[in-house]
């Protein structure tokens, strides 16, 4: 297969995963939230409402695309793409199994965080271009919170890198093979010394992808719909597709870094290799379900409290954690 054809195929594979993910996750969100809220969620379109999201996509595609007169047209149009593309790019380094990955990058971890950090630029563009005060506030909030939390997020994964000795996402999964005491899987999440790191990662990760309780940039009860207020039809669809996609990526990263990636313990390695992608996606969806659970119950943090938590608590804590991990690795390893 020519490298060009291979690249094109991989691009469409990533796009396909992203779109299918979006549709599945929106349905899942509605059902999970529905049952959390003692109601049923969609029930009428298709069996148990399964076709609801597909119909919604059709609706979004055929809806009139309203562009308000006062917007900065150029920025307004490209902003959804600037939000969407990095989130698509982030799929490149995810290790779905030991062979299923788009590129095998030695700096996969760094790459994924780097592309994800482009998202707030798009959100800020959307907020600024919309010529709407709510959008502007939403964009500014997104920029502030994501810059603030990029630091603890990256710092929080450094202990993992120190222990695993690599930034290759596949390599990190390999480092979690084997057992402690003969039967406890070697996942970093099962190592009590890693729990503070995991906690910092989870908090910073939720902020980074704008999820409740840190969904400041949308904050529907405060700033209407934040940066997405003026968007309609598929532009709105793109903004939200990338949000769902980011949720998947963050969950997949958590699975890779802490929960053994595509592997399951106590089953033969061949099985792991054969069913790797299924296991990986299933694990990622468990993470997403937890996020939805939080979304269904938690109130929203206030922006100044969020900033305080990031700069004053999480960054020092993660620096200390790196230091301790370094000492530990030096002494034990």
């Amino acid at each position, binding site marked *: 297969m020519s490298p060009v054809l291979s690249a094109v195929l991989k691009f469409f594979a990533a796009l396909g995963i992203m779109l299918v993910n979006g549709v599945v996750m929106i349905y899942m969100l509605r059902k999970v939230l529905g049952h959390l809220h003692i109601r049923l969620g969609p029930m009428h379109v298709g069996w148990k409402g399964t076709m609801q999201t597909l119909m919604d996509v059709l609706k979004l595609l055929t809806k009139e695309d309203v562009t308000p007169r006062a917007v900065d047209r150029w920025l307004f149009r490209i902003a959804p793409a600037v939000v969407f593309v990095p989130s698509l790019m982030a799929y490149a380094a995810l290790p779905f199994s030991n062979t299923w990955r788009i590129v095998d990058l030695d700096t996969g971890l760094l790459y994924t965080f780097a592309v994800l950090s482009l998202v707030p630029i798009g959100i800020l563009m959307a907020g600024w271009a919309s010529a709407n*005060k709510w959008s502007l*506030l939403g964009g500014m909030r997104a920029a502030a919170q994501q810059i603030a939390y990029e630091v603890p997020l990256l710092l929080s994964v450094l202990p993992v890198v120190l222990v695993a000795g690599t930034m290759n996402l596949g390599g990190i999964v390999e480092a979690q093979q084997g057992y402690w005491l003969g039967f406890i899987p070697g996942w970093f999440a099962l190592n009590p010394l890693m729990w503070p790191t995991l906690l910092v990662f989870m908090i910073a990760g939720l902020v980074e992808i704008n999820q409740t309780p840190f*969904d400041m940039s949308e904050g529907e009860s405060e700033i*209407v719909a934040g940066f997405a207020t003026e968007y309609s039809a598929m532009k709105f669809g793109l903004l939200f597709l990338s949000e769902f996609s980011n949720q998947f990526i963050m969950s997949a990263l958590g699975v890779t870094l802490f929960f053994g990636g595509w592997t399951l313990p106590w089953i033969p390695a061949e099985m792991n290799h054969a069913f790797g992608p299924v296991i990986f996606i299933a694990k990622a969806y468990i993470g997403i379900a937890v996020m939805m659970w939080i979304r269904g119950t938690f*109130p*929203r*943090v206030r*922006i*100044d409290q969020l900033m305080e938590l990031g700069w004053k608590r999480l960054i020092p804590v993660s620096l200390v954690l790196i230091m301790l991990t370094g000492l530990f690795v030096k002494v034990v390893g």
Partner: protein
Amino acid sequence: MTDPRMDVTGVGLLGEGLHSPGEPPAGIRRAPEGVDGLTTEHLIINMGPQHPSTHGVLRMLVEVDGEEVIAAEASIGYLHRGIEKLAEHRRYDAVGTLMDRGDYVSGIHGELAFAMAAEKLMEVEVPRKAHWLRSLTSELNRLGSHLVWYGTFGLDTGAMGQFLYAMREREALLDILEAITGQRMMFNYVRPGGVLADLPVGVDTKIKAFTDTFDTYLEEYDQLLGGNEIFQHRVKGIGVIGREKALAFGLTGANLRAAGVDFDVRKQIPYAAYPELDFEVPLGSTGDAWDRYTVRMGEMRESARMIRQLMEGMPEGEHTAKMPKVIRPSEGEVYASVESSRGETGVHLVSDGTDKPYRMHYHGPSLYALQALEDVLPGHLLADVVMMIGSTDVMLGEIDR
């Protein structure tokens, strides 16, 4: 003000500093010094009338410096239906329908206030049974109203789940109220002289089923929202309406009691069956949003307790006094008030001896709470504006009339 964010005033971050009450936030003002040599401008935000959390159709004009509120002004009147004027063209027994539409989440209280005023004018003796039925429906309605407050307050702070849980309980309550009054919201149940009808057969089992489960559910709800640390951080010490300010603005109800003032119309100016009931009045201390939350949660517990007492001790007898077909009170002027879900709801009634009121004034507690909000909001963040509207539980139907 004790808010530490106020310390930066000297640097110019706050622009013009504290908002002096009464000054309208008109036009864009320039911060005199600016930040780091850059000239900054304040932003005027039109919160509502189309905004997800303005509890009806409130329009808040908020002047912000970044996210910090410099001044806030409530623009009201979007829900004006002319209730006071319409009342001058209704017979006495028909005004209750208008009062239902004032504070539409707790209609019984409005009806009751008017009925009491009309009875004062006519000097009618209301039977004991009617008093008990009035108290029962009042407390049921208070629970329903507080549940709406609980749900929407959660929504205002960004939590979603408890809203639907609260709606489940409210549904049971509306079911009971529908069985008693025939309506879910616009009851028209309390009439001058008594109430519309006696309790229907079988409603006592419904009420018992509700009160049996409600206490446990309420504890769960309290833990779900009040036990959440994020929520506590959002409300504790925020939006303080202290004792002096609360009294100066004429607040009543939970907003006043949260500041530690023990004033409850049910205790101080007893009416209906309340003198015969055993209940506590929950009090706060500082008057912040957290106190308002705990006071209202406490009130719900007391209401449930009262409903049990009312069902146990429900007397026998007539549910209404003998009333003429057309009510023609003698000339006079009276004021009667009840403790509604939001505070003291009063009716000032002037009669000229005809079958229609000469003038009816509707005293709604939310209007005063909204005025206090304008004074308290400066210095808080934009997110607090929404939270504060929720925590004072203002009802626009009552403000605009």
